[in-house]
């Protein structure tokens, strides 16, 4: 018993010494699930190029990422929504936001007898999700879809049942375009008190319910829709144009607002101005402590951020994430020096 303990501790000790001698930097991170595919790709490629840096990322959700970062159990976090002033106030140390990639949310639907692409006005989407527009042939939907024969059927609204960055982006958009939504349901949040509809778990749950339920509408991530060939509708942007979501339109949304992005990068880019902008887009962020005591970890994180902004962005489109616009990359590169 004692002998085996001794052996175990010896082995562990040796392993620790070996790790220290190699100068391996182990970084632990946790947070958002939406950017997980691109993050794991980045961390893997970065590790191949820099064998002495290993980053473990747990995609436990934005809320968990923020809490673990505040508790100091991870070296950095990741979130689909920027931290609120209240959350930043609760933290014992300063936290910096670094946008990494862009994502978008699209409406998907299943209407009996309608196979074409539908246009959704901002009012229509808000009304449907508020439960004030209940029929598919409602004038607010019909006027944007001349020539499409919409049935006089009840709309079955589908939303996410789990807390999610996707819901955050979707409700952020609805709260911006509809006063009623803001009053009744509130601002952007990872989960809200839905006035109408059914809940599905995850993108796959929402897609499954929409596919199975006649005359239903749901919202899913663009990346999920593209990868699984799920048809989705066009959404009216701030300029009044109906735009079908694609990666260029999402990057355009970020570029359009680049001048208005605040110093700390905590910004919502839903309903951004510009004729080509897709209006339901958002950044996702890495959350990095402004002060990192461990010099090796600090340098590793800074170097990774620099790499992510240049090399890393090249991997985005292969995984259907939109690239950051040039203006944002330039500003982020400057902001890296704030990490001390």
């Amino acid at each position, binding site marked *: 018993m004692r002998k085996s303990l001794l052996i175990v501790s010896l082995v562990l000790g040796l392993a620790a010494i070996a790790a220290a001698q190699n100068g391996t930097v182990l970084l632990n991170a946790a947070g958002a699930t939406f950017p997980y595919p691109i993050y794991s790709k980045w961390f893997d490629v970065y590790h191949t190029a820099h064998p002495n840096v290993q980053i473990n990322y747990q995609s*436990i959700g934005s809320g968990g990422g923020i809490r673990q970062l505040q508790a100091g159990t991870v070296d950095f976090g990741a979130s689909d929504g920027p931290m609120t002033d209240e959350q930043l106030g609760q933290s014992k140390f300063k936290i910096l936001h670094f946008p990494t990639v862009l994502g978008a949310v699209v409406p998907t639907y299943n209407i009996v007898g309608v196979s074409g692409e539908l246009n959704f006005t901002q009012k229509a989407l808000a009304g449907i999700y508020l439960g004030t527009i209940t029929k598919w042939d409602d004038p607010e939907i019909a006027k944007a879809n001349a020539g499409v024969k919409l049935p006089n059927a009840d709309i079955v609204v589908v939303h996410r049942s789990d807390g999610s960055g996707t819901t955050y982006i979707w409700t952020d958009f609805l709260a911006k375009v509809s006063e009623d939504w803001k009053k009744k349901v509130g601002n952007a949040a*990872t989960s*809200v008190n839905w006035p109408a509809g059914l809940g599905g778990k995850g993108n796959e*749950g929402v897609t*499954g319910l929409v596919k199975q339920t006649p005359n239903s509408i749901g919202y899913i991530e663009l990346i999920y829709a593209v990868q699984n060939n799920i048809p989705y509708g066009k959404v009216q942007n701030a300029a009044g144009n109906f735009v079908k979501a694609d990666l260029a339109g999402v990057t355009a949304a970020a570029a359009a607002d680049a001048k208005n992005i605040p110093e700390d990068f905590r910004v919502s880019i839903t309903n951004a101005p510009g004729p080509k902008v897709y209006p339901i887009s958002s950044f996702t962020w890495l959350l990095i402590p402004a002060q990192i005591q461990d010099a090796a970890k600090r340098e590793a994180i800074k170097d990774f951020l620099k790499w992510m902004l240049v090399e890393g962005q090249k991997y985005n489109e292969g995984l259907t994430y939109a690239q950051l616009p040039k203006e944002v990359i330039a500003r982020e590169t400057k902001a890296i020096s704030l990490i001390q």
Partner: protein
Amino acid sequence: MSAAATTIAHEVPPQAGPRAFLRRLRGGDEIAHLITLTFAALILLITSMLVYELWANSHLSRAKFGWMFFWTRVWDPNFDNFGAAPFIYGTLVTSAVALCLAVPLGLASAIFLSELAPRKVSDVISFLIDLLAAVPSVIYGLLGIFIVVPVMRTTIGPALIHTLGNVPYIGALFHGPNYGVGFLTAGIVLAIMVVPFIISVSREVLLTVPREQREAALAMGATRWESTWKVVVPWARTGIMGSVFLALARALGETMAVTMVIGNAPTIAASLLSPGDTIASTIASQFTEATGDLYLSSLIELGLVLFLITFILNGLARILIVATGRGGGRPA
């Protein structure tokens, strides 16, 4: 506990060396006593620590909502207003539906397998049933979403609305829009999940009923069915009840399978076809992204409520067993 301590102190010689220790080890009794006692105490410790953690971490929510938490029908993370009523309702309704379907089915299967089927057939079938009990719940959820939900929406739901829906009183259970997802669908999927537990445990218990009991009944002129229903089943009653509570516990705490087929809308509606939500499915869905402190605290209080429900139901079950213990069968 003190009795154990005195026994051991008693046996230990004043100069207890390694040799004395070894001798007692060979004897085994005290050691076994000590080890089993420790493990039994460990269960108590784990349970009390669980309750303590749930209690302590739900502090914020308890302080803000108090008893209102049980009646409030709103779950609004955006405006920090939380109530458990729809989830408590959903948990109780889906579990009740599941038991209503699973108990007759499970008990009948168990009786057939233990009393009527040839031993070889019985062994093969119960092997398969044990396999069913080991299937992960997400598989049942997929089964639910791809098979049960469409059938509910296109066939069973409309059929129920047009038949039972017109019967006075019962009709309230089967009306309104039928999405395919809801309390009834969740109950059906839960029933499929828990039925293997009932069959497997009940069969084992029925098989332990002594042969003499059956022979005596037959000798008294009872038919085979009479001997089964009036002698064998009452004898095994406690064990059968045990299997039902095991099934109930699984139904109450199920997350994945339920969340995939219940519709996840926190509503309280009489209609079984209406979408709803349960405590366990809500915790599983929302815990990871719960950013606010009060939000998290309320989710933990939901866990506490689920623990309380399980505790109360188990207590009632014990009382039921004791109360019905005087109707013949094995002396408890």
